[in-house]
């Protein structure tokens, strides 16, 4: 079976020197006195700054903190919070909780999947739209609920969601 290993190029790509985010990461590492048990905190900062954890920054963190590469990668893949792929410019989260599900969230999800060619947990090829699912936002009266970036969309239908999404993505052009 073929397996998409990470390549040496991906891992060893040197981050640009003038990137101020690198300084932020170094500050965080030093704040914890380079203690290896602060790995999760440091990864949090990386994800905050980049939206995901780039491989070459894992190399940077591993070297700076003297934590073995495989340990860094193991931790980053164990926790669902950490993402190894860039998130979309816009993020669409569909509630699949009981109320939303009963009210047809599955149809909404399937419509987005086919129209935008994207699976939950992934981002469209052009990087514009990230699709995610969640279990209940706590506003079941508005079912089915979709959260688009910071907006909460109520009583969504497969018909009106596509237009709303296209408008959102288009606005950014």
């Amino acid at each position, binding site marked *: 079976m073929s397996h998409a290993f990470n390549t040496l190029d991906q891992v060893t790509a040197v981050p640009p020197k003038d990137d101020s985010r690198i300084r932020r990461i170094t500050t965080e590492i030093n704040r914890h006195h380079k203690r290896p048990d602060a790995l999760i905190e440091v990864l949090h900062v990386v994800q905050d700054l980049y939206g995901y954890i780039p491989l070459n920054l894992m190399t940077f963190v591993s070297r700076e903190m003297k934590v073995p*590469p495989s340990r860094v990668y193991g931790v980053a893949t164990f926790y669902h919070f950490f993402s190894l792929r860039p998130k979309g410019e816009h993020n669409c989260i569909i509630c699949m909780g009981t109320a939303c599900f009963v009210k047809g969230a599955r149809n909404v999800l399937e419509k987005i999947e086919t129209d935008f060619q994207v699976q939950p947990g992934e981002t469209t090829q052009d990087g514009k739209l990230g699709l995610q699912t969640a279990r209940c936002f706590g506003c079941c009266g508005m079912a089915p609920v979709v959260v688009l970036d910071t907006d909460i969309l109520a009583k969504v239908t497969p018909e009106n969601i596509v237009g709303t999404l296209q408008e959102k993505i288009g606005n950014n052009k």
Partner: protein
Amino acid sequence: MSTKYSVTIDGKTVEAGPKQTILDVCKTAGVDIMTLCYLEGVSNVGACRLCLVEVEGTQKLLPACTTTVAPNQKIQTNTDKLKQYRKMTLELFFSERNHICSVCVANNNCQLQNLAREAGVDHIRFPYIFPEAHTDASHKEFMMDHNRCILCTRCVRVCDEVEGAHTWDVMGRGYQSRIISDFDQPWGDSSTCTSCGKCVEVCPVGALWPKDAMLGHLKKSPEMVTELVHKRKHRS
């Protein structure tokens, strides 16, 4: 320091020290316990669940390798319940990945195979998962086949604790866990691996093997690592 107390193993009273594990005490008492992820010389993680024992006063089955003994503990190591669980655990090992003994390099020299034979596993009651697992032939001397890996983490522990390289670790979680080298890179690309081969020696199955080994002719010696640890202790 010399506080010793007595525990009962399968009805036999034996002497035990305060920091000893149930497994250690059983060994000195000559009681055989089935183990797989356990390797003398490296830390214990209780990953395989084959050394589970019954301790009077607790409902849970406890792994003998990571549980320390307590005074007057009454331990059962070979009840019908335990035998049944052991068999089940072994069957689950076989159903999780793609274990096909007839084409495995470790055939007849495999700890999983031996234990299954010992426990009387003659068929697998659980549906096979048939996961997509890959092989890695990028290292110049060794091979890694994830189809046969049981995630005992012996390789991870040996690499970290004995060799000190920490090339291996585990990524992901649950049934999607995989052993990785560095940042899930091909083993041959690893910048940390010293090619010492200790992981290959301690792997209890056919997941790691030297490229020059012929089918069914693989010989491994995990004791080598145990001995190495003892020798190093004597030096310091």
